[in-house]
């Protein structure tokens, strides 16, 4: 079973709005490949992850915005090897994440 889809489905049954963030592309070295996803409910619950932990806060904000507006967004986060240590990402690289409101 997919824990993220599982959770999103149960939020939907409870009538809660939610957003889904999915890694669609990873350039160079990254710990989690395309298809990895994270979901956020309108009341701030989170399931899953999209990186080693460093882009989640930014994705959380974008997800909340998507729940509000209904407009999907393709996001890119690029971290050079030198900067990677500073922001806490375990690997250098660029990840592309698609964020959308679950209204389908």
């Amino acid at each position, binding site marked *: 079973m997919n824990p993220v889809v599982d959770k999103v489905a149960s939020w939907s049954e409870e009538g809660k709005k939610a957003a889904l963030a*999915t890694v669609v*592309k990873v350039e160079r070295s990254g710990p989690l490949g395309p*298809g990895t996803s994270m979901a956020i409910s309108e009341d701030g619950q989170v399931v899953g992850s999209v990186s080693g932990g460093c882009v989640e806060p930014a994705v959380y904000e974008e997800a909340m915005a998507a729940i509000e507006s209904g407009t999907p967004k393709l996001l890119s986060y690029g971290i050079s090897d030198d900067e990677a240590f500073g922001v806490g990402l375990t*690997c250098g690289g660029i990840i592309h994440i698609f964020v959308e409101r679950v209204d389908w």
Partner: protein
Amino acid sequence: MSLLSRWHALLREQAPVAIATVIEGPGASFGGKLLVTPDDHEGSAGDEDLDRAIVEAARGLLEGGKTETRHFGPRGQRRMEDVAVFIQSFAPPPKMYVFGAIDFASAVARIGKFLGYRVIVCDARAVFATRERFPSADEVVVAWPDEFLKTAEVDHRSIICVLTHDPKFDVPVLKAALDTPAGYIGAMGSRRTHNNRTARLKEEGVSDEQLERISSPIGLDIGSRTPEETAVAIAAEIIAFRTGHAGGRLAERSGPIHTPDPDVADSPDAEDAKRDAGRDARREAAGAARDAR
């Protein structure tokens, strides 16, 4: 039923399903979502022709359990880049067949489950092939291994581990395994068992080329002794085989740790990673040659 609840239901049944999302494209199509199964589809990217192209691509990817981004024209045209569609396959878990209900099989079944395989243990001896001995296996089958394998569903993602190391069982089951498209075939045994088995397989008409498909003796060389350690060595070999890595210590090499998953294409970077990996391999080979001198 919403697309989400259908998706959820299909995953729960472990039925194959692909989800296609338009992640780049002109206004009307952007964010479009389709759910695609081998038999039907629902949802739309806003254009009938584009939908048709996406469904076709998704079915192809779903068959191989692959996830990737495909590009189309606004009306589904090939060789155009306007619309980028991320297609994610949710294929049923790949199968791991374990033959020989010995202690090692129990550890291999456990690690197989841990890696996400659907694990099927098979042995001809009813005393050994029991649910109690293999609580983590999805199925425990009492049958002659070769006869069972001839009727079993095996695809290119399937793993076959032959742990019987009894020529009475393992020669026929390995012959049956070579007739399948299995992605990995491994056979346990000492060097002596291996030599003996190889000779017998050759007597049975198995070619050298076919023999190369069999990982024997099974596992990476990490000095395993216990069933659990051996299971780790086998699991590590299965992963390395799928990804095309040689095994060995990361601490002793340079270059990227993660190369693209063969089932998840993310071109054009896949090309970069391949180039990097090739450079590392060449560097290591040069180092090894230096050490030899």
